C-alpha cells in the first residue's frame, strides 16, 4: 500500500510543478478526445436523427446495428484502423498512422455509435404531441425538424458527454494506432499503461488522478443534463 501513498504524493508534486511529460500526455488526450467528439457529433447527429425520425425499410435493422456497435471491442477498432492507415493499407498514403489525427479516426469510430444511438432514442422520444403542436402553430416540415433537434438538445448533450467519457478513457485504439510515442502520441491512458509496466507508479497515479477528475466532471455534467432533459 505504501507505494500507492508515495505515488499519490509524487502525483501531486508532478501536477503542481507542471511536469512537462505529464502535461504532454494530458494535452494529447484532451486534443485527441475533443477532435473525436466533434467528429462523432458531426457524423452521429444527422445519422441518429434520421434513424430516429424517418420511417424507411430496414430502419429497425439499422437501429439494431447501431446499438450493437456500442459494444465494438476497442482492440478490433484499433486493428482495423491500423490496417487501413498502415503503409500497405488503402489510406496509408495519408501518413496518419502514429499521429493524433490517426488516433482520432479510431476514437471517432468508437464515439459515433454512442451519438447515433442516443440521438435516435431522444428523437424517438419526441411524441406526437410535439409534432402536432409545432404543426398547428404553423411550422413546415423543415422547421419541425429543426425544432425537434432543438427539443432533443439536452439528450444530445448527454450523448456527447458520454461519448467523451468513453473516448477519453480508451486505451486499445490509442496504443495500436498512436504507438504511444513520447511527446507526440502518448495519451493519459497509454502513459499509465507504460509507466505502470515500468514500475513508475507516481506518473501513473498522477495521470490516473487527472483521468478520474475528468470522469468526475463528465459524470457531473451527465447528471445535470439528464435532469434538464427530463424536465
Amino acid at each position, binding site marked *: 500500500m505504501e507505494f500507492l501513498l508515495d505515488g499519490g504524493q509524487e502525483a501531486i508534486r508532478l501536477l503542481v510543478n507542471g511536469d512537462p511529460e505529464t502535461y504532454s500526455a494530458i494535452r494529447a488526450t484532451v486534443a485527441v478526445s475533443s477532435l473525436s467528439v466533434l467528429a462523432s457529433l458531426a457524423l452521429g447527429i444527422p445519422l441518429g436523427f434520421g434513424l430516429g425520425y424517418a420511417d424507411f425499410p430496414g430502419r429497425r435493422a439499422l437501429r439494431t446495428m447501431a446499438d450493437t456497435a456500442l459494444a465494438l471491442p476497442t482492440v478490433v477498432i484499433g486493428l482495423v484502423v491500423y490496417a487501413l492507415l498502415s503503409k500497405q493499407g488503402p489510406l496509408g498514403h495519408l501518413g496518419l498512422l502514429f499521429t493524433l489525427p490517426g488516433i482520432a479516426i479510431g476514437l471517432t469510430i468508437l464515439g459515433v455509435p454512442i451519438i447515433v444511438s442516443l440521438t435516435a432514442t431522444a428523437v424517438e422520444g419526441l*411524441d406526437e*404531441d*410535439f409534432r*402536432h*403542436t*409545432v*404543426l*398547428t*402553430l*404553423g*411550422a*413546415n416540415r423543415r*422547421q419541425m425538424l429543426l*425544432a425537434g433537434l*432543438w*427539443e432533443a*438538445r*439536452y439528450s444530445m448533450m448527454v450523448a456527447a458527454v458520454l461519448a467523451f467519457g468513453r473516448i477519453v478513457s480508451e486505451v486499445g485504439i490509442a496504443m495500436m494506432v498512436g504507438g504511444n510515442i513520447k511527446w507526440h502520441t502518448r495519451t493519459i491512458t497509454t502513459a499509465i499503461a507504460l509507466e505502470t509496466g515500468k514500475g513508475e507508479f507516481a506518473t501513473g497515479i498522477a495521470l490516473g488522478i487527472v483521468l478520474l477528475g475528468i470522469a468526475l466532471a463528465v459524470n457531473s455534467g451527465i447528471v445535470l443534463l439528464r435532469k*434538464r432533459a427530463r*424536465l
Partner: protein
Amino acid sequence: MTTAAYELIDLTHYYGGHPALSLRHLAIRDCGVTGIVGPNGSGKSTLLKILAFLITPTRGRMLFRGKPAPSPAAGRKEATLLLQQTYLLKRSVFENVAYGLKVRGDTAGLEARVREALEMAGLAPDVFIRRQWRELSGGEARRVALASRLALRPRILLLDEPTGNLDKNSSQRIKEAALTVGKGWGTTLVIASHDMNWLETVADVIIPIESA
C-alpha cells in the same frame, strides 16, 4: 345564411384498424362558438385534429368553406388547435408564444403581441415572459399554450378540453379568454369539453357526437 366553416360527409377515421371516429354528416358554422360533446372515446380529439388539418381522415369528404379541403399546410394557416395534452417547447415562455409567429414570418411587433396574448390568457407578462418552460405549473403551462395560439389571431380556434385537470383559477382565465376570442374577435371557436355547464353558457350551438 352563412357557408359552414366545415362540412364533413360520411367521414370515418381509423387508428391501426380500429375506428376512432364515424360521422354521417356534420356542419360547423363559420362564426361564433360551437361546442362538441360526447363520451370518452367518441372521437372528439380525433375530430378536432381533422378540423385542424393535422390528420387526414381515412375515408369520407371534408368541405372547408364550401370547397374541398385545402392542403394541410394551407389549412393550418386558417385553423389552430390547443391539444388536449399540453406540450410546451423546451424554451422560455416568450419563445413558446412567439414560435408560431416566427415560423409564419409574422414578426412585426413581436414582443407586444406576445405580451398581449399572455395578458389575454391571464398571465402577467412581466412575471412570466422570461420564465423557462420548467418553471411553470400545469395550469400556467396550459395558459402559455393557449397564449401561443391566441398570438396568431387565428380565423378558427379549436380547443380540446381546454379546462381539463386545471384548478379553478386557471379554468376561469381560459374560459374568459375563449369568450373574448369567440365573441370579440369574430374568430370561429370550436370547443370539445366535458364541462357541459360552461359549454351551455358560451356555445351558440352544441353538437353531440357518439362513439364510432
